[in-house]
């Protein structure tokens, strides 16, 4: 049984159909990536899974349990954590405080949480110097690491990453993706939404491509990458014409 299975998911914003009948699944321990250009519906998918947007129709089954209709707090407690687009660290709190709040989905003592946060700095040594700095003072790449650390603090069974490479310089993006590989080693299942198809397909076990709310392609990373249609999804039909 897949860890999470999405079937015929349709999500509407008012009368716009952001997702139309999307179906896919993620196996335990995998990194699955959802690709597509802006506006394709990638973030919408994650928001629906996290309970921020109620789907119009379709089902989302997590570890055998339907989670459609549950609120975000309940879904977080079930073990789904999201690192949202744009990081969204709490600007007025320090790096340590942000990370500690990642454990809010479970009961644990303050001391235990602090110890676990310490453990995060092992995984993200670059942010250790900033442990007591206010989150908003960090650079984009540093904030991304804090955001991922915060997500991991929830000890999630499924980690949703929304465009971790957004706005980051290529060198930093490489560092972030190295961390994603580390996460897989820790046996956390990851659903990675990305615009940067190249980097995403390098770490993923499986990939899907969304195009205007529908699933256009799905397959093993190497297959997807060499498929000309993936370029069409981003750059329009001109790519196939150009390479023809």
């Amino acid at each position, binding site marked *: 049984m897949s860890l999470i299975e999405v079937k015929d998911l349709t999500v509407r914003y008012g009368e716009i159909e952001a997702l139309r009948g999307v179906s896919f699944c993620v196996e335990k321990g995998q990194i699955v990536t959802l690709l597509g250009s802006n506006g394709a519906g990638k973030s919408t998918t994650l928001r629906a899974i*996290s309970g921020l947007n109620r789907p119009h129709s379709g089902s989302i089954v997590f570890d055998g349990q339907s989670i459609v209709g549950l609120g*975000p*707090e309940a879904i977080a407690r079930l073990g789904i*954590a999201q690192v949202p687009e744009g990081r*969204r660290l709490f600007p*007025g709190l320090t790096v340590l405080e942000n990370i500690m*709040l*990642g454990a*809010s989905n*479970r009961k644990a003592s303050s001391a235990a949480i602090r110890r676990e946060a310490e453990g995060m700095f092992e995984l993200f040594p670059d942010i250790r110097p900033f442990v007591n700095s206010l989150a908003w003072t960090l650079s984009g790449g540093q904030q991304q690491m804090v955001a991922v650390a915060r997500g991991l603090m929830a000890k999630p069974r499924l980690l949703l990453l929304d465009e971790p490479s957004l706005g980051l310089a290529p060198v930093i993006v490489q560092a972030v993706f190295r961390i994603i590989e580390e996460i897989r080693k820790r046996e956390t299942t990851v659903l990675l939404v990305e615009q940067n198809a190249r980097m995403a397909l390098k770490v993923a076990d499986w990939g899907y491509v969304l195009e205007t709310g529908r699933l256009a392609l799905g397959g093993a990373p190497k297959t997807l990458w060499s498929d000309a249609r993936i370029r069409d999804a981003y750059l329009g039909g001109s790519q196939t014409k150009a390479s023809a």
Partner: protein
Amino acid sequence: MGSVLQLLFTGLGIGAVYALVALGFVLIFRATNVVNFAQGEFSMVAAYLMVVFAVDLGWPYWLSFLLSLGGMAILGAIFNLGVYYPLRNRSFLPVIISTIGASIFLANTVLALYGPQPQVLPGWFDAPGIQLGQVYLDSQYLLIIAVTILLVAFQYWFFEHTLLGKKLQATSQDKEMAALLGIPVATMIMITFVYSAVLGGIAGILVAPVLFVSIQMGSTIALKAFAATIIGGFGDVAGAIVGGLALGIIETFGAAYISVPFKDAFAFLVLILFLAFRPQGLFGERVAEKA
């Protein structure tokens, strides 16, 4: 010089009360983006509760104090559920009007139940004040300043050094993100309202022995508290405290050197001037730039 110090002391005392009310008001604003025009009524209701328990029923002061604060906690919860919650997704205008309605409702319900006659609430201590050189330190004012310092210290510890305090801060900074982490947002908001009501209540009970306990005391204090938050910088916690103290001092000196009857008008004049020329107050508010 003695009189200046005396005015300073009195100004600080009354300013501390404004600071407490301003604090409760800023907390609600940061958590919910609501400007609670009924904040002053929390102070007024608490003062009347004290009168009922300590004066009418003659119960011990400390017991009456605890019961009054308990009543305020309940009022804060009801306020959250009845006034804020139904309108939480609407624009600011209905919410403002609704809190104004609540303020009038509270003030006039107390009036209907208790009558228009101002009441007298004795201070906690019968002890006279301390004479320090040329300055007479009234015992109630000393109590006000002491309690305010304690509360501010408590609040600082609570928000900066407890996990719950951090969760409350997180909720006020980004509700959606807090929910994504599993923080129970509705509970956090409830705690904020209850805490603010209790804070306002403490302010009311502290200041009541100095003024009369009257129906109008709430709105006067609230407006001064608003002025305080604007002076300090709207939305800023430290600003609320500094603004409150500053306003108390300005007002006291204004009454002494310019005119007593018009002293109430000073707060409002200062408010308008700040809004016109320095709306971000002394400490400024981090305003989002995106359109």
